[in-house]
């Protein structure tokens, strides 16, 4: 089978029982994606499939032949960090680091969902797209952190979200 992961091609013949998570970790050597529970309960295995966040432990590898998979390794490198990766370091949005790749991939997907205007359980209305701290917390609650860096994670995400919004505004003004 053929998989596209972080823009690279991989030819692997996985067991039909192999999860996308185990494909990444055990077959193609991308161990940045973590296995915390293998139940879809902790979010440590979150990756992006065609831009949307997904618990990679809850989906079989064979279902993703034609999909674009993005993992933490596809977002940035130690010498060239993604803005969220840099913000997590700056705000100490992690301690042991094990849930961190999942938190960051989840945040990338979450910010895109919010930008598209998708509401959450705590959204006051379907029109107001303000990404408050309460919204960030609600939308990130599928990603557990036992070290409990939660407030710092929210700070990191908010900083990037605000920056992205400022950039959009600047872009819109420039276009106008």
């Amino acid at each position, binding site marked *: 089978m053929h998989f596209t992961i972080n823009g690279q091609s991989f030819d692997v013949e996985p067991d039909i029982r192999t999860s996308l998570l185990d494909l990444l970790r055990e077959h193609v050597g991308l161990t940045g994606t973590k296995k915390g529970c293998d139940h879809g309960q902790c979010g440590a295995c979150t990756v992006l499939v065609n831009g949307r966040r997904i618990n990679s432990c809850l989906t079989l590898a064979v279902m993703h032949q034609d999909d674009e998979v993005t993992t933490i390794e596809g977002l940035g490198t130690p010498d060239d960090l993604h803005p969220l*990766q840099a913000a997590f370091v700056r705000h100490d949005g992690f301690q*042991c680091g094990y849930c961190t790749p999942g938190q960051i991939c989840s945040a990338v997907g979450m910010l895109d969902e919010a930008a598209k205007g998708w509401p959450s359980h705590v959204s006051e209305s379907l029109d107001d797209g303000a990404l408050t701290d309460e919204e960030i917390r609600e939308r990130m609650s599928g990603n557990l952190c036992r070290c409990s860096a939660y407030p710092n994670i929210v700070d990191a995400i908010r900083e990037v979200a605000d920056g992205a919004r400022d950039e959009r505004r600047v872009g819109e003004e420039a276009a106008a």
Partner: protein
Amino acid sequence: MTKRPDQPAATARLDASVQGLIGTALDRIDGPAKVTGTARYAFEHQGDAPPLYGHIVGATIGCGRVEQVDAAAARAAPGVALVIADDPRLVSDSASGSEDALPAYTREIGYFGQPVALVLADTPEAARAAAALIRIDYTIADGRFDPPALHDAADPDPPRPLIPNRSIGDVDAAMAGAAFTVDAVYTTPHHMPAAMEPHATTAWWEGDRLTVHTSAQGLSGTQRMIAGSMGVPREQVRILSPFVGGGFGGKTGVVVEAVLAAMAARETGRRVKIALLRRQVAHLVHRRSETHQHVRLAADAEGRLTAIAQESIVSQKPGRGFIEPVAFGSLSLYAAPARRFTQALVHVDLPAASAVRAPGEAVGSFGLEIAIDELAEKLGIDPIELRRRNEPENDPMSGKPFSSRQLLACYEEGARRFGWERRSPVPAIRRDGRWWIGHGMAAAFRGNFTVESRARVTLAPDGRATVETDMTDIGTGTYTILAQVAGEMLGLPARDVAVVLGDSALPVSAGSGGSFGAGSSGSAVALACQTIVERLAERMGVEPDAMTLKDGHAIAGNRRVPLADLLGGEALSVEGHATPGAHTRSVAQASYGAHFCEVAVDAVTGEVRVRRMLGVFDCGRVLNLKTTRSQMIGGMIWGIGYALGEEGVIDARTGQFVNPDFGEYHIPVHADVPHLDVHFVGEADGWANEVGAKAAGELGIAGAGAAVANAIYNACGVRVRDMPITLDKLIAGLPEA
């Protein structure tokens, strides 16, 4: 350099902070590796040849005997390399830390999930599928699965307690003659460490030498226990644990998967990887014992305590030594002439109990600090004022002076920042729409220890330094703070200090646990650096005190010499050796803090939301403002979890946890946690150790949950003494909405 300080020992060069590195909010130096997924954890060392994957088959009964195991179908299953079933090469349980080997295999089942077989296959899927084919016949016995049902038969004076039972004065007489008393029972449930990274090991042999990549808090004990279990000298075993996906006490010992992987690698000649399934973690890794705490407080009319008693019952598996030291944080918190602190023990057929983050204080502070809140209400005085009136001058247990104790400053600073004066002393007064609003506080206390620790510091010919020790960084920030200690001591920017950890071939450290890691390993680094400083001073021809080190240069008189020039092409390498000295016996050492919390309680459903939380702490010198703050935040959130959600529930028929995963064992999530305020009031404590840092990692959890519980009472007037405070315990007592 070995130093055994009998007097304040903190290093002047750290106090001076010429480099400006110690104590700063430096970003974690291992941060880029962690946020990019390039940091490799125990299961992520694949090797060149395909490994074998192991799957542990555990008993599906909690008490009884294995009569027969049929593994024929598993052995014949596709992809299976080896099945080891009902076999003396297996082990029966994990070990807490002091043992020389893991307990041998036995057919007698003493807890649910006890290993009975191990399946090794080419893929994890094949191993797990084959494991499902193993048939085990048992004789089932009646197990002791319900600790409270056994309390009448508790051993009042169990052997080898962490803190001995202590009784000073006559508590009963004080209670009888007191103007005000509290006499109540407080309970906490089973807790799980529940690190995000499940226990995992990759092991392989090269000849008679074993390499074990595992997830461990301390490497020396891990090496000893794995070598002992394998029957080889420990020098032949190398333990690697450079990144640990959380510990929280759960990785202080050696869990069965490490020994089974090492054994299977020897049997097969291949690299073997075993990770516990999440639901196995709950049973094969230890729990924190549930606690039953009988607390009695006696006070005179002015609110001065005349007696404090905290008498607890906890549980343990037979043959295991750890007894949850419930009163550890209570011993020295308040003055009172009559004092009684005891732990009784019941034996159960459950997973072993051992250290989970802040053994003692994390749960004992619920009993004492809620009782103090209850006493304050009876006296009609503010809970902070009650604590002030009972602040001891010296350690009330030993009579020794405190090395430093800024507890009153924690109360004052916290009250001011939180706006405590606006709190209503009367419960169930404030409303915000459908929510009752309340405020509570509690004290935090964590004893400080220094544990023998070694570290090697090498100054390379180019003037850059490398720190090497077998210490671990379990998220605590060790990599970063050791770079800061070495950089400050040697006058180097952080980028010129490399830190190598998590390899048993390196000098033996204290390991991570008991909040002693930073102070102990940091002191070893500081002592090594101090010797390097002395040698550099010799080359400068001056006394060490007359030489300043900054930005890679030695400065004395009117000379400023690059370190590379002083080194003359040769490296300087020194091992530092920190030990507890007479100073640890001559003063009482602890860290302190105060938690403040605002909660909202739904007037109809009893749902509790934590709206604000603030902590002020005295943990001596803060080595890194960013990582230490994170430690405090983490502890406070554990307090929220203990107050509101975490509860390991045992099926009293089978002895298994019915909620052994994150779906059912409710740790806090993003939506449960507001912004948290953390402030520090402490200063370097020279009595504590060479770096002047006191216990931090476990301080944040001590008392945090009690502050939440007290705020809930203040909000709605319902006093819950049985943790966690779930809404079913509130709803019947809620005031008329």
